[in-house]
């Protein structure tokens, strides 16, 4: 079902009766190609990490691969040179709350779509998929105007605030998350709920106590997906003037500060990757199982 990352899975190759010289050569060629591709995937990240320890001059000179002198102070200076702490905590708050709200709402709606064929479910599905085909540049202006209107007329502070970003991202990522959740619920046998309902549980209780615990991998993959995507959102945050990391990180090199501190930018980039990487590798197996379950039935 899912992709196993460590366990010795069965090989997809046919058993070879005789050791075939050509097949052996083909295999070694594959090893070399794999090594090259892994190098291609890893070197950029390694390059970033090494660069984050260089001094300003050494980075600008771009003379060597390894830093001649390891400058660990970059990692403390990056917090003071720009308001990185503010951006970081803003991003954490926005992405954390967005992930929580989206995961709960997507679980409910995904369940409804997977289990009920209600009047309007077809149209609802079409609307969900339709939202994915509309470019952000089309509804960015109206969204900005709507938020501005709400701010001026109802006093809801939606522009330049974390609250506004959370409202935006919940609406933004809900449709696709719901779709991931739906395909995951569809893989859970319906008998379990029927059994629980025969035993006297209501439909809602069956959903909450029987289905949700089984949907763990699906919930986790949705949550990580939402967090990763929200962590990465630049255009809307920039237009709505929300001080998240993608917006703030330009300060290291931006025209306004004219700082050109690329080694600090590298250090900040490493720090940005860390929370996501930690979450991802802790939950990797379940995440991948959840993502692929819906696709490979």
């Amino acid at each position: 079902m899912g992709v196993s990352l460590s366990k010795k899975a069965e090989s997809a190759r046919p058993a070879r009766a005789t050791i075939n010289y050509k097949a052996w050569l083909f295999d070694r060629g594959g090893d070399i190609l794999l090594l090259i591709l892994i190098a291609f995937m890893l070197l950029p990240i390694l390059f970033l990490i090494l660069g984050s320890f260089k001094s300003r001059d050494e980075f600008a000179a771009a003379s060597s691969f390894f830093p001649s002198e390891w400058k660990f102070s970059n990692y403390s200076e990056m917090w003071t040179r720009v308001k990185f702490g503010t951006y970081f905590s803003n991003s954490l708050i926005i992405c954390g709350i967005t992930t929580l709200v989206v995961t709960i709402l997507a679980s409910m709606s995904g369940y409804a779509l997977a289990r009920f064929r209600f009047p309007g479910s077809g149209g609802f599905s079409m609307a969900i998929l339709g939202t994915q085909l509309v470019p952000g540049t089309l509804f960015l202006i109206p969204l900005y105007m709507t938020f501005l209107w709400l701010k001026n007329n109802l006093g809801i502070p939606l522009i330049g605030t974390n609250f506004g970003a959370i409202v935006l991202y919940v609406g933004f990522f809900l449709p696709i998350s719901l779709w991931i959740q739906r395909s995951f619920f569809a893989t859970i046998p319906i008998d379990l709920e029927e059994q629980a309902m025969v035993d006297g549980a209501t439909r809602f209780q069956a959903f909450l106590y029987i289905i949700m615990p089984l949907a763990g991998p699906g919930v986790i993959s949705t949550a990580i997906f939402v967090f990763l995507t929200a962590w990465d959102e630049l255009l809307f945050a920039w237009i709505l003037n929300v001080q998240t990391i993608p917006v703030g990180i330009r300060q290291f090199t931006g025209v306004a500060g004219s700082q050109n501190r690329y080694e600090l930018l590298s250090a900040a980039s490493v720090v940005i990757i860390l929370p996501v990487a930690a979450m991802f590798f802790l939950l990797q197996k379940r995440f991948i199982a959840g993502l692929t379950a819906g696709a490979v039935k």
Partner: protein
Amino acid sequence: MALAPKKNKLSLWQRIRQNSLAYKFIAPTIVAMLVVHLIPIVQGLYLSLLDVRLTTLTLYLKAPFVGLKYYIEVFNAIFGIGEDGTSSRVTGLINAASNTLVYTIWTNIGTLGVGLILAMLLNRNFRWRGIARTLVLLPWVVPTFVTGTIFNFIWLEQGGLANRILLGLNIVDTPITWLIGPNSLYALVIATVWRGLPFTTIMFLAAIQVIPTDLYEAASLDGANGWQRFRHITLPLIKPIAATQVLFGLINGFYGGYNIAVQMFGGGTGFAGEYADLLVPAITRQTWERHLYGFGSAASVILMGMLLIFVGIWYRTFRDSLRAE
């Protein structure tokens, strides 16, 4: 199946009441979609028919109605007719449109092709397989704006990692200019492929792993060679997954690339130069820096139209494998 809906026997009202829990469950989603998607999209479509610019922005939906003026402006320029064909906003857009097409095609070929090769290489039995699979996933945790930053360093003409490797291996004699000129679009393609590969690889790997081994064994007994087994067993069975990946690739190709481009091409001005400018960055610039809000909306609709044509082709191509799923 006690829970299965009984169709047609009940009236609409009874069916709605019977499914009341479903409506309660989707109600918050519908509100969120109305506020963030549906209402703004309808407004955006209407906006593309209005002359909204800096001076008329406060009028917003009451701005002067110009009908299809902006659409005609863009279409005339594409087909080389009309006076407005040379206005800089339109030529910039047409440039970006052709770049977007090339970008979409190459990112798809790169991600799907290399992703499939990687998946097959990782599906073999070897020591370190677990580690290799984890390492291949790494670019996935790198946000796209950081990807742009990294590749900004990698493509540097003097001392960038790419030129350093190419010169070191004697593949080229003189450093290549990556970030300016015709190479810049491919610099963007490679960065995008790098970030997109892990997801595609893991999906292909999942699909390959569920193919029953006895299919390959039977084919071998019948004398099929490696290529024939790949062509007639692996490829048809991963087609449904490939279909989803192509759809994601099309959407990302047309609408994505913004974060990487903004960070990769010089410090956040967002302009990648005429060779690598894509439609979303171009439209964003026209809209927010030149305050051409109505024009930007019309251009967005045209961009959506371009994508929908490709989605239509996609649907015709993969219709059968989508049903089989």
